[in-house]
């Protein structure tokens, strides 16, 4: 359904060129949800924005395939099918606009509804996210964080999209509200037959809503597989460190921790070879010369690493 082919994005920051996303390939099928995980600066938000059509890729193409037609990324058709929910709900709603107006915009401009039908459609949209019609005249600042995010979700759903890009939608919310919003998203996933591209740094949230997971590091996808595969046996050395670092309730004596050493590579420095070489416990000469490509190593599983599959699988989850 959604095809991302060799997409790169770079921009200038003073003298440096920042390579936020490097030659990423990704395919999302209808009804399937993918989690995009990684730490600060890995490029996941940028990739999300590229897919949502907010940014234009410097290289590569993004296309939405529907009934045999290729819909290019900067068309109204695309906007109707791919929508986005942002991280800070208070910021993503125009403070001067009432809730009803915010939801009416996509109904008018993307669905082309005549003005007479807008009010009914807005009410429908509000009910779908668990808000009642009286919210239509409220202003965003009078709403709680959770309510604001519901409005943002209603706006995203208004055009009837097939894919929703969610950029850390619950990270800035209170923990109790987080679980409620996640439940809403989970219900909508099945009732509206939606696909999600769920960007998050929180693996537990991704586990709840997604079937597949893509792990990003330094602008590239370094592992892509089903979630069960990733959580039970991560292959890429970075994935191993990432999963090992997530705190788990430990009742017994302290376990020896093998923390990842060093700092993440700054995206403005481009180096030869694998971007993980300075921190990888398994680094060898080939890693410094040649950047590994994302290759299929198992059914439904790709890893970008020079180490052979058997070695990666053998070293176990904690690396």
């Amino acid at each position, binding site marked *: 359904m959604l095809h991302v082919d060799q997409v790169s994005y770079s921009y200038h920051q003073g003298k440096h060129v920042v390579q936020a996303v490097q030659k990423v390939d990704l395919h999302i099928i209808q009804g399937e949800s993918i989690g995009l995980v990684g730490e600060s600066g890995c490029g996941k938000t940028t990739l999300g924005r590229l897919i949502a059509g907010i940014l234009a890729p410097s290289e590569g193409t993004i296309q939405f395939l529907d009934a045999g037609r290729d819909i290019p990324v900067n068309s109204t058709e695309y906007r109707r099918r791919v929508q986005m929910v942002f991280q800070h709900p208070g*910021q993503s709603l125009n403070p001067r606009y009432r809730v009803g107006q915010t939801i009416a*915009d996509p109904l008018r401009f993307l669905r082309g509804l005549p003005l007479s039908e807008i009010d009914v459609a807005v009410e429908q949209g509000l009910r779908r996210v668990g808000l009642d019609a009286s919210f239509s005249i409220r202003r965003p600042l009078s709403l709680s964080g959770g309510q604001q995010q519901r409005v943002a979700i209603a706006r995203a759903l208004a055009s009837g999209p097939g894919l929703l890009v969610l950029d850390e939608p619950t990270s800035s919310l209170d923990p109790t509200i987080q679980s409620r919003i996640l439940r809403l998203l989970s219900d909508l996933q099945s009732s509206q037959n939606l696909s999600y591209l769920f960007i998050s740094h929180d693996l537990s949230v991704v586990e709840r809503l997604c079937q597949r997971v893509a792990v990003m590091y330094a602008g590239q996808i370094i592992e892509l597989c089903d979630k069960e595969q990733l959580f039970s046996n991560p292959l890429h050395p970075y994935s191993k460190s990432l999963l090992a670092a997530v705190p788990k309730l430990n009742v017994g004596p302290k376990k020896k921790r093998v923390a990842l050493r060093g700092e993440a590579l700054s995206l403005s420095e481009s180096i030869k070879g694998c971007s993980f070489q300075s921190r990888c416990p398994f680094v060898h000469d080939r890693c410094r010369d040649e950047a590994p490509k994302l290759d299929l190593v198992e059914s439904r599983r790709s890893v970008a690493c020079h180490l052979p599959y058997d070695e990666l699988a053998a070293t176990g989850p904690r690396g």
Partner: protein
Amino acid sequence: MSNKVKAIYSWIKETIRGRHLLAITSTSLTLLLLVGFLLPLFLADPRDTNPENSYLSPALGNLFGTDKFGRDVFSRCISAIRLDLLVGISISALAMVIGTAIGLISGYRGGLIDRLVMQFTDVLLAFPGFLLSLIVVAVLGNSVFFVMLAVTLSFIPYFIRLTRSGVLVQRQLSYVQAARMSGNSSWRVAFVHILPNVVGPSIIQATLVASWAILSVASLAFLGVGIRPPTAEWGVMVAEGASDIIIGKWWTSIFPGAMVVLAALGFHIIGDELQASQ
């Protein structure tokens, strides 16, 4: 009836709460404007010359005295209110509308347009407003219209800068991107979504600009640029009456001068108070 009155009364009280200076000044200026429109109907024609009554000191018959030509200074001052205040307000409003629109487009589009606009603004700002007005007048001709144009031009850069910086901040916020994603065209995003959120500081700036505009127009008139005698205008009156001070006839220049100060001060205080209460 009394319920509605009570409601209005309490609304006024609430709006005035803590902002007494603002309340006083706005009321005074409004009164001044009203006076400027209504009172001339009852007063002597400001252009009436009455040579026998020249240089009468301020007295009950002529509150501000009479000038060289026997014209009543008071009625001239009052009839000038309309001219000066309207000139000040319209220059300010025009500069705001044009400057805000340019700043909005420039900040939103960025790139080459933005750079060109910034260069243009820098050039305009390099000239002291006064000098700019003189140059425009020298080139285009000495008339009220051109002078107003020149003064407006000298204030436009402030609004461009102000709006542009507001737009640069708003542009980063996700509601702007969300508006694009909802299908709004670039124009709608700029004018319907962003503009209401950046226009606040411009409105405040407009009140300050109004006060500067009044001063500018009066000063230029004093120099003989733009509004000229025999039109009753405060700056003109100060110019004409300036030489009278030496012969001891202070009222022909001091009163109009005081009106300029009062009007300009009024707008300035309003602008200040609005800024402080932000």
